[in-house]
């Protein structure tokens, strides 16, 4: 039985491999090491004089990530309360809708959101911010509604027993319990958003990705090196900041 499953997996792999490589031009593949060496040669040394031009796009990238996270949080909080089994007003009607919003937002990558939004509202920072915000709903919403469902029911009952209204139960019973999780999730998502917003420019949604796209199009590989190193430094820094902040909160 187990061996059968492994065998089936191998057969499936071979079958998929056949279909996938049908159109592969093997000459390009065998040629790849030379191409790699060629690109590597062009990438070095990095053209450091390009760095000052990157400050403004980097600032834009940070803004896309931060404002996008803010927008995502604002939209995700109500969705999370509608999706959590213990706070939703109706489990038969509203909960599936909220869950669908979460899944839809999670399954479409921010680059695809950006592609759509650039087509709809035009290139620029706004498209990037909205793309990041729409993408963040699913992540924040999912983690937040799980946190809401895991709240301690006894505390909520205690508050309800004092004759508190629904809003008061929410405010004093649930919100204090999920606050640390909320901040942790938000900072975590901000960190992911920095990472994602660096490439949004590839489809025209602003930020440092625009410079990357421009350098790639003109085959200015020595500039690509500078951009990639800057992106790497930003990502590492934001990861460090977010780890420190989450450590302080939780």
């Amino acid at each position: 039985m187990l061996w059968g499953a492994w065998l089936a997996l191998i057969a499936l792999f071979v079958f998929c491999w056949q279909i996938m490589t049908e159109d592969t031009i093997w000459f390009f593949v065998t040629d790849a090491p030379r191409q790699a060496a060629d690109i590597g040669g062009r990438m070095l040394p990095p053209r450091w004089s390009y760095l000052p031009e990157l400050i403004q796009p980097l600032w834009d990238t940070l803004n896309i990530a931060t404002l996008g996270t803010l927008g995502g949080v604002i939209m995700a909080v109500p969705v999370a309360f509608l999706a959590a089994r213990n706070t939703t007003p109706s489990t038969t009607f509203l909960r599936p809708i909220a869950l669908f919003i979460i899944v839809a937002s999670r399954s479409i990558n921010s680059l695809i959101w950006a592609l759509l939004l650039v087509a709809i509202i035009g290139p620029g920072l706004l498209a990037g911010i909205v793309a990041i915000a729409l993408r963040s709903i699913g992540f924040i919403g999912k983690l937040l509604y799980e946190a809401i469902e895991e709240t301690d029911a006894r505390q909520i009952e205690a508050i309800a027993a004092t004759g508190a209204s629904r809003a008061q139960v929410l405010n004093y019973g649930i919100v204090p319990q999920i606050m640390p999780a909320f901040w942790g999730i938000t900072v975590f998502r901000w960190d992911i958003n920095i990472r994602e917003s660096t490439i949004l420019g590839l489809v025209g949604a602003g930020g440092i990705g625009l410079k990357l796209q421009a350098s790639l199009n003109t085959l200015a590989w020595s500039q690509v090196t500078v951009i990639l190193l800057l992106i790497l430094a930003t990502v590492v820094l934001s990861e460090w900041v977010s780890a420190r902040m989450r450590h302080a909160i939780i």
Partner: protein
Amino acid sequence: MASYPTTWRRPPQIVKDRRWRLTLQIVIVIYLILAVGTVEVNWARVYDGLERGQRFVLGFLQPDFSSRWRDISQGLVESLTMTLTSTVVGVAISIPIGIGAARNLAPRWIYYICRSIIAVSRALQEVIIAIFFVAMFGFGPFAGFLTLSFATIGFIAKLLADDIEEIDEAQAEAIRATGASWWQLVNYAIQPQVMPRLIGLSLYRLDINFRESAVIGIVGAGGIGATLNTSIDRYEYDSAGAILLIIIAIVMVAEYSSSYLRKFLQ
């Protein structure tokens, strides 16, 4: 009679000093004003776009599966085959790297090599890797396959290595005490403990790889993303809507079945 407070406020928890809290809040407000200020909105362009947005929503509600079905199905087949092959290859490569990156199994120098491979693979975005592989291997799903395999290594090897480091040492100790060799140790003490988790992670990665395969097509690495990119470029929103619905449906199916399978395995 003592007067009791009638209202309650939770004391602040993160920044305790009132002055620091105030400065922090002011700094945040200033940053937000500056950040919002950098966003230049061309309202005329947005207004133009509203009509297009409406068309997109309409296209999403009335998806057109038929007129571009050949392109869509080809993109879908590329994406799905790419996903499966890259996950299998990625996991196969991850296992030795993951074992090498576990502190309790590998010698120091192998540990550092494997950890740095993982760090490189995790730090680079899939899309950026895809750009390089497309430049080296040409357009098409083969570049996508390589990209996803490479990205899989960072994910699976890291989690596997962390898992191996957290195993129950008593069992490993017991096997060691019988005079087992290193291979026997891995085979009888480590593998049974991490196998269910590894299968679970591979299924999860399969799910992620499909999502990513929809993206890397935008930079030319084949798959459904390329089809989607083309249809949006041509403003064929009904086809784009159909593709997005297919992606959402597959991701939902993959997510539910993988979480079901993982529950079944554990």
